[in-house]
């Protein structure tokens, strides 16, 4: 891949906050076209916030976000989505009150175009037969795993330029996780760049070419996937030690320190 092409996603010195609570302190990294990046870090490190900043759900306080070379800082989420970024959020990412088919139709009309809806539906049901069987059920009635598959199916049929998947495997049975990761690998083969947020370091690193490790809202590692494991494990272990220290110093029942969040 030549370096002439701009990265498909690029964050530069991004700071972000939830109201008065600051969450990111100058995060920078980039994702090359067709690459797969694992986004690692302990709980509360800011992984989901990075994903939300990239997709426009959370406004940046300073810094910039570029998608496919275009500066999208401060733009509404729907514009960023149209620029080619898909974000499968943490937890439930489907419309509960709509049927499975309506969920897919809603997506395909935008991503694949109106004329392509029915062929896209066929392809989705072929790739995920479980969804085909339940096409007329409310999405809220699906199991957690099926819901994740549905949110993947929404994006996989017309692959976006970059897909951010936030903890897709959380709470799923191992066999379902295999399905989900197979879907991600498919996407990558069709040219989509991936940003995979994951608690299960092994799963993510197996898929990824490079990795970003976050701690307390800042990047502590950005480089090849091989070097990331040690850093990620170290960061998590340090976090545990800090929490244990706090617990023994202040006595049982004391809350761990709130990390970097503080009122501005």
């Amino acid at each position, binding site marked *: 891949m030549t370096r002439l092409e701009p990265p498909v996603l690029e964050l530069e010195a991004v700071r972000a906050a939830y109201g008065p609570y600051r969450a990111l302190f100058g995060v920078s990294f980039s994702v090359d076209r067709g690459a797969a990046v694992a986004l690692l870090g302990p709980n509360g490190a800011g992984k989901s916030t990075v994903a939300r900043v990239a997709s426009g759900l959370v406004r940046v306080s300073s810094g910039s976000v570029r998608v496919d070379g275009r500066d999208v800082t401060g733009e509404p989420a729907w514009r960023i989505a149209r620029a080619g970024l898909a974000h499968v959020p943490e937890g439930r990412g489907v419309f509960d009150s*709509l049927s499975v088919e309506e969920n897919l139709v*809603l997506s395909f009309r935008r991503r694949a175009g109106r004329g392509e809806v029915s062929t896209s539906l066929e392809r989705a049901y072929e790739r995920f037969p479980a969804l085909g069987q339940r096409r007329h059920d409310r999405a809220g009635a699906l199991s957690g795993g099926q819901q994740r598959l549905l949110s993947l199916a929404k994006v996989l049929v017309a692959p976006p330029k970059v897909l951010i998947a936030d903890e897709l495997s959380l709470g799923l049975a191992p066999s379902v996780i295999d399905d989900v990761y197979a879907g991600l690998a498919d996407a990558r083969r069709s040219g989509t760049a991936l940003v995979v947020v994951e608690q299960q370091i092994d799963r993510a690193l197996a898929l990824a070419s490079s990795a970003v490790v976050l701690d307390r809202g800042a990047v502590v590692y950005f480089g090849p996937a091989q070097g990331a494991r040690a850093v990620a494990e170290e960061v998590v272990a340090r976090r545990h030690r800090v929490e244990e220290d706090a617990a023994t110093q202040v006595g049982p029942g004391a809350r761990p320190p709130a990390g970097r969040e503080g009122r501005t």
Partner: protein
Amino acid sequence: MEQLLGFAVPGIPYGCAYAVFAVGLVLTYQTTGVFNFGYGAQAYASAFVFAWLVENHAWPTWAAFLCSVVILGPGLGLVFDRFLFRRIPSTNTTARVVTGLSLLVGIPALLPVIFGNGNLVGAPSIVFNPDTVYFHLGSDVPVNGIYLSAVLFAVVMLVVLVLLLRTTSLGLEMRAGVESRRLLELEGVNAPRVTATAWALCGLMAGLAGVLLAPTEVTVQAQDYVTLMVAAIAAAACAALRSMSVAAVVAVLIGVVSLTAQGYLPTSSFWYSAVLPAFPFLVLVGALLLVPGLRRLDEAKDPLSSVDPPPPPPSSRLRGREIDWIVRTGFWVLLFAFVGSMLTWMPPSWETVLNQGMAYSVIFLSVTLLTGTAGQLSLAQATLAGIAAFTAGQLARHVGLDFLAGAVLGALAASVVAAVLAVASLRLRGLGLALMTLAAALLFDVAIFPAQAVSGGTGGITLSSSWLPLDLFAPDGHAYFLLALLVLVVCAGGVALVQRGTVGRFLAAMRGSELGAAGVGVNLPWQRVLAFALSGALAGVGGALLAIQQTVIAPGEFNYQLSLAFVVIVLTTGVGTVEGAIQAGIGLVVVEQLLQYAPQRLQGLTFVLFALGALTYAAHPEGIVELEKRRWTERAERVLAHRHRSPATSSVGPS
């Protein structure tokens, strides 16, 4: 058979009128996620402007139609969206209900202020001539233009909207946007525009409904739209706010059944005078008790709500020691100054006004406890106040009981009614609970308070000074003031104690998250009944106090509109704290009194002002007074921190 037809057929256009509104309510709920209490008011606004242009300014019908329906209708919808509902997070049901209510209260009050004269006679009809009999049903049931336009409009509207919602991509996006606008944006859909379109569409429908149905009533009156709205709400509730067709069918049935019954029942019977007017409310209560879909109304949550920052802490929590001391001292100084002024130099007219404000404050404390602390929305607080006042009045009149003793029994009665209401609505939450309490309030307004045995008819009960132990009516004495002060201090202290005590913790936990509260062992049903009972008692005490101040207890003093206004007022000033209730009570009467000095036209503006307050409520659910207090506290803390050069505890940098 002929007779039955003769009674039932005139019910169809009424039913269709209800249906038009019921479908509109379901449409708004399905496309915007808001149960728009203000829908009837929107329709009324269009009808009003239409009639005003045609009657007072001799505009041609088409131009007036263009202006009032095609422009004003969607325009109002867009304004509601842009300035009110867009700012309210979808999880905040209370804010949505209250905003809708303030539109319901505010718009009919605002129109006369803008246009003058509130009741315009004979709005002209659009499609069919209302007086022409077009054909006969059976042998001699005449079908005139009003009937035709209502039926036609209802049918066309229903078909068009069902098709729009079920088959078009705009309909799909609207329904998706209700569940989560953020998720819809992630699909690349311009969600704000979809929602705005939905509001414009609903506004257009409301405007059409208002203008097309205006000729069914002789005059364009706000009251007609309220009756209409209740039937429509009942029908929409029967359809679980989901199916427009079911809502339409139920609405037609309500119209037909009431008119048929009206034809058959003897006019002097109890059924005719009490049960018939209450019929739509009974349907509503029945739906709320029986339709399972209504229990799950607020359950579909936005999966991306975790993106919102948590609400700010109350100002009292932010205060440091020094400012706390200043505030407390200031409070006592103010209290003494207030009592001193009232006893010495305050002119009697203002003393009366402030006395009334104190009585209102006690009623408002019941809102603080129920809504502010326990998070339960009740739209029947004025009704509860009325129950206590009428009980005390009737006991004094018939048994010769001292009015103050009667007031205690009355508060007890109000408390029992509130508890019964709570038990009846145990399975409802949020919007469902609001509707249930609204139905109860309307039921009392229509069927119970007007009864001779309860209120002594429309004139009400006049208090006699012999019912009271103290000389409370003495014009220049301060007896009433001292009584009101005592009651207010005891009630305010009581609420503050409850808030701080165990019960308050349980109630606050329930407000935060019912599921979470149940998880840590809070007995939810019991806490809820308790909160309602306590709040009912407070409202009752306040109601009796108000009755003494007014010397006449009239049914109109405790109607549902007042309940709505109460909730709106307390929520906009600050529902979390005892001070909030007192500020609301005093603020209400002071504003009302100041408006006395304003031109005649502006006199009805009090409610409009507080409805405007709801505009700020949408952005600041903690209430404007509370918001300002927090801002000032923060400012003061900054100044202090600066002076002391102490390290600012409130900023943690990324060092």
